[in-house]
């Protein structure tokens, strides 16, 4: 009696395969779930937070850019700006020139004309009376009378008018020429001649602020509470309603350990914290856009009621910042860039025409305080995505090695199946099922955990660094693609290649276990070493594929380990040597170098004058500021190296980041104007931390068209207290430079330690999986040498010592490659950020890397020893063929 067509029974092996090797598969499964879950959580959280940030642009009326003026803008200026049209500054210059001429001309002309007229009358009188006997006093009286008489005549009036008209027209001509010259200069600088289409639909909002002290160590940027622009998202509490309250940034409050209801001293006034907020234009607490890193520890933002704002600010601390918003937001960053370039010309010309001065201009797409967090999401996602892909490749290869070993072990069964009519495709599908099923189940579980647990973990990580608005979870297609399709594809294709390659033999070759294509007749000859050494070497040769996968895994682990250990090393190196890496303890920048009475501002504190210009360097990722210093001759703060005329000295970070060498010429651009400056490098100074150029003060003033003795401020190692605050623009201290490092240190915190632990566990898992393959493969030989009378310890030394030697070798190679790769990755990351820090791993840390990963290995060796002990002696007898 015939039976019915049945389903492939090989599928029934699957649960037994899982149960039989449950330890191995559980370890792989847990790791897959952990990594897929984390990455899924990251995509879900980041996607949701990005959506919240996007929605926040409208919800919290986030600015599209801001600019700062020297003094408050007039109503006309605001109107001009909102018109979106470039001001006619030629007309402005002309009007101004004429106004100036009109103001001064009469007085100057009259003085000059009078002098000439009086002199002429005097000359004539003296000529007429030269033969008369008159005293000098009599002559003077006569001259005086004659002048009066002449002035009263009609002829004088005509002569005066003619002279006046002629002189006025001449002066006006001069002014016109001067105006045109000035306009030409400005036009070249800002490219005003090019057609600048009006920027339509732009609204300007006053967004004044003041930087005040907060407590003893922090600084807070206080804004007026308003509902038109950059409105706060409230996390906890209620917005201030009286003049004794303030709402501050949630992130900073977390870092500073502040709670709702606490009282803090802001600019000398005690205020009660009523709310924790996030401002849409400060999702990352960057004090200055040129800072390398944000500072949520010592920098804060807050809002107070308008009355309190008026009370706390004065013309010395008030910053006249204006925000703008487009009625219709540009669709892409490219369009936003084009629009903001056009608007910059509008601002420059309108501000100039209104007799004001532009201090800063920052469209939102360039604003790190707005974009850093969201950019960081994408960068992190990119990085984590790559990590996961590499991890998946490693796991896929581990499966590949395991399956290869199974195929070798089941060679005769495969031969029988193939001889019975099973196709190669059916067997490929059968063997690929295990990794694929595990990956799919791990993806499903990982994604469930990603959407439920991990997304909160990831979000809390970001909320620890950034001031982001609250978010709701949104479905993320990329997460599905990255955490299910990609792992599946990697696992599928790697194993497809490995299995197809391993199943390439004929049924007969499988039946004969003839699975080596090399057809080497004799075993490789080995040197005349001891038997044990040769035995170990044979084991190593026999397991080359496992060791190759192990090498791949160890390089990956060492790469992670190099970061986990090297990043704190780098930070510590900067922290420890910071004192020696700065020019001086205080760089006091002045608003003006003369006081109200036009006297030069001086200080009694031991100091040295310097000049400073902040320029920009071309970088495809960001606009990075470079400080160009003019240094006094024989400076005790910045000892200049020997430079030829016209050469400059640059810092090592600048040289490294932009690949500039001694003898090279490089270009820096003015921040707003279309002006660039070329510098020839005469020397590179190793010790400084910032991107800077140093040149003799004389050369500096010449290069930047400044007066001979002009300067920007003072270098000193003590705080300068004897200059009125109103003349001081900024004091740069070591804390300002160290805030980057402090923030990095804070952001990384203990996470690097956990990262190191993860690396050790990863090393252990990798070793566990691969040494298992090696021992499983050698079960027969192990069993046989047991029968021959070898002790377990001897067998372990044969099988474990060989692997240990290879592992240590791989560790050293992995460490070198890991450090090399992470240095490249670090440099690539820093290329997209401001500043530059050389990646550093100390000698001790290198030892740590080797030791930590080896600890992971040692844990597994103990298990391996147990495994070897458990291999039964009849194994060899059972499998005699």
């Amino acid at each position, binding site marked *: 009696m015939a039976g019915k067509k*049945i389903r492939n029974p090989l599928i029934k092996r699957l649960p*037994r395969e899982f149960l039989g090797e449950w330890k191995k598969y559980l370890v792989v499964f847990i790791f897959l779930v952990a990594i897929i879950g984390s990455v899924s959580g990251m995509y879900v959280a980041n996607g949701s937070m990005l959506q919240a940030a996007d929605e926040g642009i409208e919800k919290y009326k986030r600015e599209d850019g801001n600019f700062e003026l020297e003094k408050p803008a007039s109503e006309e200026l605001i109107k001009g700006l909102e018109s979106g049209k470039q001001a006619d500054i030629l007309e402005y210059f002309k009007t101004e020139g004429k106004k100036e001429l009109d103001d001064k001309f009469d007085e100057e002309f009259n003085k000059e004309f009078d002098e000439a007229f009086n002199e002429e009358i005097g000359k004539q009188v003296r000529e007429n009376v030269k033969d008369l006997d008159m005293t000098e006093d009599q002559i003077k009286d006569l001259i005086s009378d004659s002048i009066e008489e002449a002035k009263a005549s009609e002829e004088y009036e005509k002569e005066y008018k003619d002279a006046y008209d002629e002189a006025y027209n001449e002066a006006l001509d001069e002014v016109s020429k001067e105006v045109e010259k000035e306009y030409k200069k400005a036009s070249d600088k800002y490219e005003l001649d090019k057609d600048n289409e009006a920027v339509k639909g732009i609204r300007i909002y006053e967004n004044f602020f003041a930087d005040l002290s907060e407590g003893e160590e922090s600084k807070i940027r206080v804004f007026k509470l308003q509902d038109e622009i950059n409105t706060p998202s409230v996390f906890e509490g209620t917005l201030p309603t009286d003049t004794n309250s303030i709402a501050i940034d949630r992130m900073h409050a977390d870092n500073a350990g502040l709670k709702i209801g606490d009282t803090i001293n802001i600019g000398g006034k005690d205020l009660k914290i009523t709310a924790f907020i996030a401002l849409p234009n400060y999702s990352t607490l960057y004090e200055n856009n040129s800072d390398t890193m944000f500072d949520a520890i010592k920098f804060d933002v807050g809002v107070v009621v308008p009355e309190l704002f008026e009370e706390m600010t004065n013309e010395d601390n008030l910053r006249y910042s204006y925000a703008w918003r487009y009625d219709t937001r540009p669709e892409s960053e490219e369009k936003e860039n084009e629009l903001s370039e056009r608007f910059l010309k509008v601002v420059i010309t309108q501000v100039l025409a209104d007799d004001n001065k532009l201090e800063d201009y920052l469209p939102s797409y360039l604003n790190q305080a707005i974009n850093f967090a969201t950019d960081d999401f994408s960068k992190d996602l990119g990085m984590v995505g790559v990590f996961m892909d590499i991890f998946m490749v490693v796991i896929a290869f581990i499966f590949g090695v395991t399956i290869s070993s199974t195929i070798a072990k089941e060679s005769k069964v495969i031969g029988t199946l*193939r001889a019975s*009519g099973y196709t190669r495709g059916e067997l490929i599908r059968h063997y690929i099922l295990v990794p694929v099923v595990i990956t799919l189940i791990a993806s499903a579980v990982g994604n469930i955990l990603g959407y439920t647990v991990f997304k909160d973990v990831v979000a809390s990580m970001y909320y620890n660094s950034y001031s982001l608005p609250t978010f709701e979870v949104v479905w993320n297609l990329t997460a599905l693609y990255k955490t299910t399709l990609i792992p599946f594809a990697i696992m599928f294709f790697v194993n497809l290649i490995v299995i197809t390659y391993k199943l390439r033999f004929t049924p007969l070759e499988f039946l004969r276990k003839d699975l080596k294509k090399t057809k080497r007749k004799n075993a490789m000859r080995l040197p005349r070493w001891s038997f044990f050494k040769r035995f170990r070497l044979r084991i190593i040769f026999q397991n080359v594929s496992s060791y190759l996968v192990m090498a791949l895994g160890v390089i990956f682990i060492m790469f992670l380990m190099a970061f986990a250990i090297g990043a704190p090393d780098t930070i510590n190196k900067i922290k420890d040597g910071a004192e020696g890496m700065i020019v001086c303890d205080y760089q006091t920048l002045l608003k003006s170098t003369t006081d109200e009475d036009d006297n030069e501002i001086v200080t009694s504190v031991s100091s040295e004058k310097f000049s400073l210009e902040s320029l920009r360097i071309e970088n495809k990722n960001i606009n990075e500021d470079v400080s160009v210093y003019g240094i006094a001759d024989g400076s005790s703060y910045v000892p200049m190296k020997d430079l030829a005329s016209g050469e400059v000295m640059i810092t090592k970070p600048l040289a490294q980041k932009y690949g500039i060498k001694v003898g090279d010429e490089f270009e820096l651009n003015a921040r707003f104007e279309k002006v660039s400056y070329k510098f020839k490098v005469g020397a590179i100074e190793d010790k400084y931390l910032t991107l800077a150029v140093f040149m003799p003060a004389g050369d500096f003033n010449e290069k930047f068209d400044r007066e001979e003795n002009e300067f920007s401020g003072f270098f000193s190692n003590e705080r300068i207290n004897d200059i009125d605050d109103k003349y001081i623009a900024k004091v740069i201290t070591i804390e300002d430079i160290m805030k980057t490092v402090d923030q990095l240190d804070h952001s990384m915190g203990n996470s690097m330690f956990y990262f190191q632990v993860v690396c050790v566990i990863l090393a252990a898992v990798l070793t566990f999986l691969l040494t298992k393959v090696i021992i499983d493969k050698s079960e027969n030989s192990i069993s046989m040498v047991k029968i021959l009378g070898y002790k377990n310890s001897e067998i372990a030394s044969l099988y474990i010592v060989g692997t240990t030697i290879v592992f240590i070798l791989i560790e050293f190679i992995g460490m070198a490659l890991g450090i090399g790769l992470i240095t490249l990755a670090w440099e690539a990351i820093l290329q997209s950020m401001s500043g530059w820090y050389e990646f550093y791993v100390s000698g001790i840390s290198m030892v740590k890397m080797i030791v930590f990963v080896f600890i992971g290995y040692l844990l597994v060796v103990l298990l391996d020893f147990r495994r070897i002990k458990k291999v039964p002696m009849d194994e060899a007898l059972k499998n005699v063929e």
Partner: protein
Amino acid sequence: MVKETFLTVSNVYKAFGEGDSRQEVLRGMDFTVAKGEFCVLLGPSGSGKSTLLNIIGGIDSADDGYISIAGDKLRDMNEKALTMYRRKHLGYVFQLYNLIPNLNVKENIEVGAYLSDDPLDIDELLNTLGLWDHRYKLPNQLSGGQQQRTSIGRAIVKNPDILLCDEPTGALDYNTSKEILKLIEDVNQKYGNTVIMVTHNNAIQDMADHTIKLRDGKVRKNIMNDNKISAVDLDW
């Protein structure tokens, strides 16, 4: 009555190795086997019997000459066609059983059943094989004879035209060997498959319809046995 020729082995040559190490294993082998015949390939080690069986089974190829089964020549088939040929027409039984260790007896037989569109009833077969009580055991819980029964079950469940047996009793003791031979005999009679069995055990020729004696890669004797006895009566 003249039986219909099912398998033709025509002037088959096969050599292994090259140059000095070249060894001719089959040197012009010729014979035919009729449908439903129990044919034994008998010969000492190195006589070429296993090589010939492998070529008949389509897992090895002849250097010259051909094999045809029901008129189809194997040398005209590509790898895919050969796989299909094995799938549809052949059942293999090996000396060392080659069972799948983590499938039980029934499932190991299902592995064979899967290949056929019209397999035998597995439960009935298990009874025939005397494995009904052991059907849920894994191979390592079985004796050698039971394992070989399972492997025969796997081979015949798809009711192949030809059952190829490569020293099926080579690893078994006397009694178990006889049991297995009886089973093959029963299968041959019950399902009418052509059986080609490789053995070096002379006694087995007594139960065959047709014995081909090989030596040095050639057919030395081609004997039709009109007085065959049952496997249970064999003695060696």
